[in-house]
């Protein structure tokens, strides 16, 4: 894997991250925001994995797998929280959610 290939991976990772950021910043719903966050995380994981492949060093890929696992846990917990809140208040909008929290 040479530098040219790495560049494409990095472009794609940047696209993923940017898409995540865009989703986080534009969508009102908490679910979408969570999806956006996942996109950003995946972008970052892709960067970890690609550099690890480029350097012939497995530490980055190991770290990426750890991150994915932790992210799964975190997403499941976050979804659970959101669902509970939605059940209780019928609110999924982030801004309204702030007021609910109070």
């Amino acid at each position, binding site marked *: 894997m040479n530098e040219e290939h790495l560049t494409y991976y990095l472009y794609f990772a940047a696209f993923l991250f940017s898409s995540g*950021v865009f989703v*986080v*910043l*534009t969508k*009102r719903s908490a679910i979408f925001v969570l999806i956006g966050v996942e996109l950003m995380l995946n972008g970052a994981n892709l960067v970890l994995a690609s550099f690890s492949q480029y350097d012939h060093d497995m530490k980055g890929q190991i770290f990426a797998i750890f991150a994915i696992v932790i992210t799964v846990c975190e997403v499941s917990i976050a979804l659970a929280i959101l669902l509970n809140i939605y059940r209780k208040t019928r609110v999924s909008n*982030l*801004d309204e959610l*702030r007021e609910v929290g109070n």
Partner: protein
Amino acid sequence: METWMIFAMLIAPLIGGFVSYFGKQVSISSIGVFASLIIALFFTFSGNDIQGSIEWLPGYKLNYLVDQTSLILIALVSLISMLVHIFSLEYMSEEHGKRRYFLKLGFFTFSMIGLLLADHLILFFIFWELVGLASYLLIGFWYQKQGIPSAARLAFMVNRVADAALLAGILLLDQSSLNISLMDGNWLMLPSILIAIGAFGKSAQLPFSGWLTKAMVGPTPVSALIHAATMVAAGVYLLFRVSPFMHPDALMIVALIGTLTAFYGGICALMQHDIKKVLAYSTISQLGYMVMGVGVGAQSASLFHLFTHAFFKAGLFLGAGAIIHFMQHATKEDPQDIRNMGGLRNQLPWTYKTFLVCSLALAGVPLFSGFMSKEGIIIAGWEWASSIGRWAYVVPDLALITAFLTALYVGRMVLLVFWGENRIQNLYSSFKEVAVVRTPLIILAIGSIWIFYNWNPLAHTSWIHASIGLMPSHTDDFISMIVTFLSLLMAIAGLVLAFSFFKPGSNYNRSYAELQSDNKKILFNGFFITTFYEFFGKGVLRLASFTFKVDRRVVDGAIHLIGVGGVVFSKIVALIDRFIIDGPINLVGVISRLIGKALAGLSSRDIQTQLTWLLVGIILILSWILFF
């Protein structure tokens, strides 16, 4: 000692006035005047001139001089004043303000004696003004009655106009020697004329004569005092004192004015229905004689006429006072109107007798004093005219015509007042000719008889000429003879004409009660001389209102303009301040407010905007790290 006596002579009438004002008896005031008379007589017989001075300012002395002239006149003034005081005891006995009246009388006498004592012209002027003030106070004695205050004011103001001229004349003289007795040489024309105008004002000469008839609203004994000895005599006395120094042309003007005034007074007196006005015009006429006498250079004759005139005119006025008092108690009609009188010799025998004697003296009938003194003046006028030229004969001629007019109006007055029948039916009055009324009248009538002046009833000199040391020098006995004859003729012609025209039963006398006094008649109103004063006063008022308007429009306008200009300027400064100086400061404020609003927007929105800005911030920081 002598100084103290002179001072006592001056102050005694005033003290008498004050004592009667604060004390219980008003009759005390006549004692003060009597004291002055005694002192004056004492000095007259001791025969010395006394001179002294008062230091008014350091180094500026006001001299007084007591010589025979002033002593004779002081004796005359205090005698007349004393008789007026005595007469007033009865005349004013029912007045509430009689204490005030006697105080004013004392003040009047005091001022006049001071005027006669003064030698320095400034001192003279001070007393001159005091005399004017005193006469104003006395004329306005009944100040609550309608028209009287304005008449008193008119008399006062006319005198003020003339006094302004006198003061100007005094100030134009050589200031180092204002003492009359120390003067020599001739004055210039202007100060001579101005001082003569001052004398004209006091002595009621044309054109100032209007105040004297207006002054008739005062109490009648006051009129006697004003007309006989005090007020109007002051002008003649001034002319007597200063005429040796006056410019010859000014003296000629004095002679002409005096003659004209004599004629004017005589012709106006013929047409009056008010007994006091007849006497007032007669006084104007006689004063004209005196002024004319000074003008033609016969000062001693003028002084003699002043002396004799004082007696018979005071007698006439006091007699008129008795008549008016009688009429006041008898009728509701105007007590001074001759049309309401007639036949009064039955009711007022003493008044009639004394009035007749004084009238004959005024008319210039031989055996009475008026003939002698008037004759002296006319003779001097004739001599003066013969030395000047043909036109100057107008002076003695008019004087002779006036003598005729005098006899005419005197005859008319006596016939209409005392003879015939009463014009008002059932005339009864509680007024009686008591001793205090009778005595002054008798004394004044006796003083009008020739024997007290000269043994010869046709002479025109007297002991007065001798004692003041000014005997008239006659160049021509023919003139004095012809004048004596002519004035005798004039007096008798006047009286005869008066008798034939106004005698009881004549047409005039019968229709007299219904005679209307037409206000349009020029002689009845004395040639409208007071109307002229009013016109003059209105002119002064117009001038004042004109200057007021100029003040309002021009001066105030300029000040307004300056004020408006200031306001406009400050408005401009305010605009500059607001837009040029405040502008940048406000701009800074506006900009910082905009920035603040913009920045405030960052934090106040929802969470995603905040995140956006967070991202922007991170990008900025990263690009700072990466690119710089």
